[in-house]
């Protein structure tokens, strides 16, 4: 009986572009690339009504699609699939709350934030803080410590390239 441990989390788009990768077990870059390639293919090939869990190698993959993005976690075989599914959901909620109606473009252009939020929520593959309020508090506190805030932000909008429609649609669009 093992304790709950997530092995890795991947975010990728419907086009198969990797948007975020977090590895909780040591693997070589080559191995990571191989896993990513295989898993993206496998998950994208699945049909919408299929179940959110699949056995893959000796792991269990739990995935869910939000708008244009797939969130995909690999856990150990004995792990709790449903709670993993809700880990994904809570992470999406956190992103949504932080960015304000998050879309794929937010994660592309602010990838570092997506990592910071994830670190506050999950550490070493385990849920560290499950309270939405507490996680956001931690991130916002950090933001308060920053400088140059608004000046940079407003300029940011000006350099936007038009994204794919899907990339700019909110993950919670439904």
């Amino acid at each position, binding site marked *: *009986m093992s*304790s*709950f441990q997530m092995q890795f989390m991947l975010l990728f788009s419907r086009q198969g572009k*990797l948007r975020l*990768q977090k590895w909780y077990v040591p693997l070589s870059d080559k191995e990571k690339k191989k896993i990513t390639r295989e898993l993206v293919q496998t998950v994208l090939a699945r*049909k919408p*009504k*299929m*179940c*959110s*869990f699949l*056995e893959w190698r*000796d792991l269990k993959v739990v995935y869910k699609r939000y708008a244009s993005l797939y969130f995909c976690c690999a856990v150990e*075989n*004995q792990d*709790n*699939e*449903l*709670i993993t*599914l*809700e*880990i994904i*959901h809570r992470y999406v909620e956190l992103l949504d709350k932080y*960015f304000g109606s998050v879309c794929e473009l*937010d994660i*592309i*252009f*602010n*990838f*570092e934030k997506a990592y*910071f939020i994830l670190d506050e929520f999950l*550490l*070493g*593959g*385990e*849920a*560290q*803080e*499950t*309270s*939405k309020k*507490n996680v956001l508090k*931690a991130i916002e*506190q*950090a*933001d308060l*410590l*920053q*400088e*140059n*805030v608004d000046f*940079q*932000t407003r*300029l*940011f*909008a000006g*350099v*936007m*390239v038009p994204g794919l429609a899907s990339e*700019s649609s909110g993950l919670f669009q439904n």
Partner: protein
Amino acid sequence: MPAVSKGDGMRGLAVFISDIRNCKSKEAEIKRINKELANIRSKFKGDKALDGYSKKKYVCKLLFIFLLGHDIDFGHMEAVNLLSSNKYTEKQIGYLFISVLVNSNSDLIRLINNGIKNDLNSRNPTFMNLALHCIANVGSREMAEAFASDIPRILVAGDTMDSVKQSAALCLLRLNRTSPDLVPMGEWTARVVHLLNDQHLGVVTAATSLITTLAQKSPDDFKTSVALSVARLSRIVTSASIDLQDYTYYFVAAPWLSVKLLRLLQCYPPPEDASLRSRLTECLETILNKAQEPPKSKKVQHSNAKNAVLFEAISLIIHHDSEPTLLVRACNQLGQFLQHRETNLRYLALESMCMLASSEFSHEAVKTHMETVINALKTERDVSVRQRAVDLLYAMCDRSNAKQIVAEMLTYLENADYSIREEIVLKVAILAEKYAVDYTWYVDTILNLIRIAGDYVSEEVWYRVIQIVINRDDVQGYAAKTVFEALQAPACHENLVKVGGYILGEFGNLIAGDSRSSPLVQFNLLHSKFHLCSVPTRALLLSAYIKFINLFPEVKITIQDVLRSDSQLRNADVELQQRAVEYLRLSCIASTDILATVLEEMPPFPERESSILAKLKKKKGRGNLPVIDDTRRNVNGNVEHAEKTEAPNQVSTPSFTDLLNLNSAPGPGGNLLVDVFSDNAALSSTDVCEENFSRFVCKNNGVIFENQLLQIGLKSEYRQNLGRMYVFYGNKTSTQFLSFTSSLSVLDSFSPQLNMHVKTVDPVIEGGAQVQQILNMECVSDFTEAPVLKVQFRYGGMLQNLAVKLPVMLNKFFQPTEMTSQDFFQRWKQLGAPEQEVQKIFKAKLPMDTEVTKAKIIGFGVALLDRVDPNPENFVGAGVIHTKSIQVGCLLRLEPNAQAQMYRLTLRTSRESVSRRLCDLLSEQF
């Protein structure tokens, strides 16, 4: 519509990301990236000191490039610099870069650890958290060494902020997973367990994960966590959902923490303390009750969170396997989920029920859901769900429902996804064997299996059916009849031909009385398939034919004609040709008695675990395979059929697969049939005798082989790259050896390095006589493999085959070289490259005697150099290996350590292969 960036946008980064997104092709992207890399490199190298913001921006760009999948080989130093920045965002980017691009560069690790140490000691909770996140993300051994002792202190200190405690707990957990030896918990244990009582649920959540991991490793040390977990769990499950404020998730109280607590409890058996136990039972009952309540929200998150806790509770109930009421309730609950509209729940219910099926208390309850599960097998649209259904059917199978389940699985197999066919085949084969009351059903099932999914029937499956038929004489007649009928089909799978050929070859006589399956009909039927089959199957059929000759003398002529045809006798495949030749010859010359002996029915196979089961275990991994547990069934009153069959006259039967492995040549004393007639038998089949080989490393004369019939002695002399060996064959019996031949076989890679020439010997060796054979050899270049001498002769009508490895080693071509101490060390130094030296340290196998050692070194072929080594205990030697192509100078040094009874042997030559070979040879001598 555009993304809103909170905090500090980095304009340059955004522009760069936009550019990359605008690239129309991979090439354009790479070009843009290379441009950026060049730019960043020049900025980092430039004279102008970069400000923190720019540094952060460039490091972030590098990170982005890396995450796109490109290699990054610089910027690490700048990232490390960011760690010491006072600005949070700069520090943060520095840590992120390091977490993502872990570098084992030791200098950097020291610097990184330094930065982490500063932040850990800063007493600034946000900085401390960044540092702890970094340790947890990287989790390297160096970090464990540096911080494993600090983190427990931070974790349990009274003045540590809650958020830091949470990070510290999980950081420790990560280090414990990667380097458990470096994380001493002893003195902290009690205080860590006590964190389960913490007021802050976030701290409890993080601590529970840590304690679970620690408890798995040393359950005794963390025993007290059981009572605390039960208390905590009880408070959560009985709380009104609003009590826990933000830890309530879609009206479910602290689902993550509940799941973790339930998981922690799975590290332990049910509590012994009665009140604790009843409190836990209450909790579990409450969780089961809640599942029956109407949902508080229609959102899937609500039901997922609630059911996550429920499934974990069921796991705990199954783990305890001690409360029949709970087990049956769990089973009923899962039964409801089996028909739920959510695919996810159906999947999980099937999975959980698999575990319940192996409990004696709930096995019967699980069985009541059989129809639903069978239905799932037929109607589920998702293959992974169907797979779960197959697993569950397999787990719930027992004697009472085996026929139905096997039938359903067979039906399903016809349309099953290719990905799971092989597994279903294995499962059907196992169930059919395990629950067969009458073996006719078993035979039918397996033949059906081959008919439906022949391509997915692995060797193990058809081996096993033959094994069982041979061991059970009550089914042999039926099996013969059934395969005979099955073979009537115009197109049948090759696996069926194999089973058919084997079974008719053994038991065809049992149905030969019926004119519809007379010997000739049987033979014609089999032979009609022959030409469509692969070589191994044809080989098997040829064996069946020779068995027919024994069983049915009336078809002998027909079969001999077949064997005699050009397509057999001159078949391009050696194996087939050899069989045809041998079998034909056997049928012509052997008397009926000999035939009957040689072609006797196969003896029963020794009982062993089904190789199919082993294969399934291997395929599924132990954890995934539902246990078919006999003890459980015995509790239910179904006494297992003892599968031990008496196996008389078991004469060291070789393993089953070997017997059927018709491609490989038989070993000595293995398959009688082939040995007796192996005039042309592949000599490689005989084991090569190497017993005395190493004794000849340091000497040239002696007896290399001896058995009851024959003695082989050697005398050899070498000069530079030439050698001559006299081989003496002594007939120890009083009878003639006939057709005596001896030849050299050289192993593949070997021949060009050593030329050998053998003079032939007289084919007859009289009883008690000795004959001599001369072997000339020339060493062309350095070599490793020794030649093998193959000897063959007839003694009393029996063909004898043996193979002896001849002691022709590289060191035989040594010429000793005397030299002075000065010369020696000068050359020793010249041969100092790492690939020129080979060293071995080994334990003395023989008593350490200086004189013997000296003799051996001289025997090895080198000159023993006196007073060269400053240490008089050591031996040094020098010599030159002569080959036709080159000469290789060689120095050796042997250092005995009498106290430790060890030697160190060092060889230096200009060729690595020579050094290695010589070292291997000599190190075996002491």
